[in-house]
């Protein structure tokens, strides 16, 4: 069957429960009640501190076929996922599903755990490195489920991703299970992506290497939801968790795109008091923030909030009075951690609060503008951030589709040519974010506006911006680089790409090799 953006989705996919095709960004409504985890009691004399993971596995007990969840705030410095799965292997467990919000190169040992049958399912929002490559080559016998950050929150809340045990990598804990991310040697800032896991899992285990005095404060995840606390020697490598400073690109093409994107935002008329903004930490995205900042300073605009993954640059804007609040679901650097722990206007929010489509309103809905990237975009404005030019998985939506759906204006910043490859194609290899939620593409050679937003096009033309038809931009790129041949993929479905509402927007097929 074809879904609403014309992608061919099989009626049934082995290993995936009932397939609902994507019907439109806001076309699917929930018809269920929330997931209810086990009700607990413990006696006043009971203790939660457990000596090691093996003991926790036996106490719960963890059994074959369970779903174990993990969050990704430790990024490429995470030690907890591998440690927990090694424990599972040591105890001879089989057929586990790993629900890890993002997979990084450090998680390469998952491959071995799949080969020896310990892990048979993977549920994630983003993956890069050896696991992603192995998945693309058909590592798993059933497809990996790729969600969005908000969609994962929704799936947990709605009982579609039922978590038996949530293992929470906690930079700091007390012995009674209060957790935060701002203290201890592995401080990572916000623990937002772990909030739904902690709320809805049947069992919650905190894994930490830093035990503070009771009661720990601040409390990000409370004792009322945490069953056990395990102290290990080291939960992660700080070098892989946070970066010292976040640098703005010096690449002249990136800067040109960023400057144009800032002018595009200005032309929308949204840079005024109360401005709400989200941008990524990389490349042209952060540089756009720098240009927007200058405009805000010049016009003495005070924004309402900045949202999403928070960098030192956003912290500086908060402290300079350019935004009143930061809403932080993930911190990227030491400044973000410092600010979260000291500034009451820097709020820690969960993945559900951030972006889940099925609640009484998530934060992305309040955004004026979001700046996002893309690996490919098609002439219908559908965006791919999952597969690379060779068809291999190299990312995932993360919050991409969520923020795009929520914001008043969604802007993609991208080089028209990346190396030799044109960014605009007739049909993206993998659709991640539907074109109806993308408003503008900004490249170094022009700006394309979604035909659904004739209102914006008018404003941009009036502002003298280099507006071009998306077909025209595509031809311009192909004139320089030549038209690329389409990548050939195999037949086997290695991943399903779930839209934030739980419908299937696309599938990823195996690559040769």
């Amino acid at each position: 069957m074809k879904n609403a953006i014309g992608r061919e989705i099989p009626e049934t996919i082995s290993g995936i429960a009932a397939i609902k095709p994507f019907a439109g960004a806001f076309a699917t409504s929930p018809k269920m009640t929330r997931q209810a985890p086990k009700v607990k009691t413990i006696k006043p004399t009971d203790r939660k501190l457990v000596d090691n993971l093996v003991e926790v596995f036996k106490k719960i007990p963890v059994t074959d076929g369970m779903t174990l969840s993990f969050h990704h705030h430790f990024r490429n410095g995470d030690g907890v996922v591998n440690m927990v799965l090694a424990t599972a292997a040591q105890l001879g467990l089989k057929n586990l599903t790993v629900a890890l919000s993002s997979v990084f190169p450090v998680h390469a040992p998952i491959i071995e755990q799949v080969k020896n049958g310990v892990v048979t399912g993977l549920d994630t929002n983003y993956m890069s490195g050896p696991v992603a490559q192995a998945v693309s080559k058909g590592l798993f016998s059933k497809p990996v489920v790729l969600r969005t950050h908000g969609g994962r929150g929704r799936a947990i809340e709605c009982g579609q991703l039922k978590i038996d045990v949530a293992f929470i990598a906690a930079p700091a804990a007390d012995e009674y299970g209060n957790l935060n991310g701002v203290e201890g040697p592995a401080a990572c800032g916000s623990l937002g992506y772990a909030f739904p896991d902690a709320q809805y899992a049947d069992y919650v285990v905190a894994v930490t290497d830093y035990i503070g005095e009771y009661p720990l404060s601040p409390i990000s995840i409370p004792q009322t939801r945490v069953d056990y606390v395990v102290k290990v020697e080291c939960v992660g490598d700080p070098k892989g968790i946070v970066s010292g400073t976040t640098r703005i690109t010096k690449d002249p093409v990136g800067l040109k795109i960023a400057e144009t994107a800032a002018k595009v935002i200005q032309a929308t008329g949204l840079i005024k008091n109360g401005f709400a903004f989200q941008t990524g930490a990389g490349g042209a995205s952060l540089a756009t923030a720098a240009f927007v900042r200058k405009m805000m300073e010049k016009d003495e605009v005070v924004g309402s909030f900045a949202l999403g993954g928070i960098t030192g640059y956003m912290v500086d804007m908060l402290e300079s009075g350019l935004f009143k609040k930061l809403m932080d679901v993930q911190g990227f650097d030491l400044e973000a951690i410092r600010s979260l722990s000291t500034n009451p206007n820097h709020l820690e929010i969960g993945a559900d609060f951030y972006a889940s489509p099925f609640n009484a309103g998530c934060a992305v809905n309040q955004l004026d503008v979001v700046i996002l990237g893309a690996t490919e975009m098609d002439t219908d404005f559908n965006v791919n951030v999952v597969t690379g030019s060779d068809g291999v998985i190299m990312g995932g939506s993360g919050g991409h589709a969520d923020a795009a759906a929520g914001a008043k204006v969604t802007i993609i910043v991208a080089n028209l040519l990346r190396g030799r490859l044109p960014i605009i194609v007739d049909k993206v290899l993998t659709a991640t974010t539907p074109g109806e939620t993308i408003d503008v593409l900004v490249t170094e050679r022009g700006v394309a506006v979604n035909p659904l937003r004739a209102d914006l096009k008018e404003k941009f033309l009036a502002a003298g911006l280099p507006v071009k038809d998306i077909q025209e931009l595509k031809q311009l790129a192909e004139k320089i680089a030549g038209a690329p041949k389409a990548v050939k993929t195999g037949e086997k479905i290695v991943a399903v790409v779930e839209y934030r509402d739980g419908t299937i927007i696309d599938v990823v097929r195996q690559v040769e090799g």
Partner: protein
Amino acid sequence: MASIAKTAQAGTLESSDVMITVAPGNQGSGIVIELESIVLAQYGEDIKFILEKTVKDQGVTDIYIKAVDRGALDCTIYARTLAALSRAGAVLKEEIA
């Protein structure tokens, strides 16, 4: 001139460049191309075509070419190939003219 005098190289491994190595081929060996590219799936045929055309146009018939491509445009591939040929002792038609 059916081949070149010696092995030579031009280009770099920077993004959007190509490193071309040419070596003399035995008489009758033809044009042998070994290509590595980050855009092999999308542009492999195009790159081979321009490599072959460039050496043929210079009258070289027996040569080994290794190209390690980092997403270079056709004009870059053409220029790097000519430079490698020139360094390998070929007298380019452009130089005579």
